[in-house]
């Protein structure tokens, strides 16, 4: 298990991506699976900065990678306002181009890219987003 701390800034997205890429490769994920982890973590951290903290700030985003027997577990911790995933509508991707609205796509991508996604928020631990990607079977 390795945890790395980042400040809350979109400027850190590339460094965060490099970190989880290293972990995903160490876990033996294939090229498509590595990209899926990169995208899910990028969307999650973007949401924390833009919607959670609502601004760039010195607050923490801690990311822990755990190599599992059958894949990779990534856990993201932050202290932003609690988030209620149920309130974000799932985007309708079968609608016409004109009706497409930029809302909820990040969360939708996270669920599509990862095999397991759990979110919890507690007063003493802050927000915890746990995501697991398994090896291709």
């Amino acid at each position: 298990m390795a945890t790395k701390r980042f400040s809350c800034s979109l400027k850190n997205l590339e460094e965060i991506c490099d970190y989880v890429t290293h972990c995903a490769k160490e876990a033996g994920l294939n090229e498509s699976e590595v990209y899926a982890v990169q995208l899910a973590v990028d969307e999650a951290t973007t949401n924390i900065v833009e919607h959670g903290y609502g601004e760039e700030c010195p607050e923490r985003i801690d990311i822990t990678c755990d190599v599992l027997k059958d894949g990779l577990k990534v856990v993201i911790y932050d202290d932003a306002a609690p988030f209620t995933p149920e309130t974000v509508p799932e985007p309708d991707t079968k609608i016409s181009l004109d009706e497409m609205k930029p809302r909820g796509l990040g969360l939708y991508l996270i669920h599509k890219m990862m095999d397991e996604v759990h979110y919890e928020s507690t007063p003493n631990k802050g927000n915890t987003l746990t995501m697991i990607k398994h090896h291709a079977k």
Partner: protein
Amino acid sequence: MEIQTTEYKRCTVVRTSGRIDGSNAHELSQALKNITSKGIMNIVFDMSEVNFMASAGWWALIDTQKTCKPTGELVLSGIDKGIKESLNLVGMGTYFNVFDDLTGAVANF
């Protein structure tokens, strides 16, 4: 983010490289707006050097496609395998014509 644009007779080609994410997607968005504001609605986005595209980047492209259609069209060329898979997985691939290479994309117009 370095963005190059090349105007051809029938279309304009936009090219960038590396990552497109929440930190720089607005730059791509602005570059595309600069083109459509001149009345150019046939655009090729050459993605052969782009290796990562988050949803913020897709929104820049969707916004541009909304502006271009129905007069013209934004088409994509040389998309990385992972980017294409993620685009298709969320059903957004249907909004764009995709070409394997730049020559085919430019010839489309």
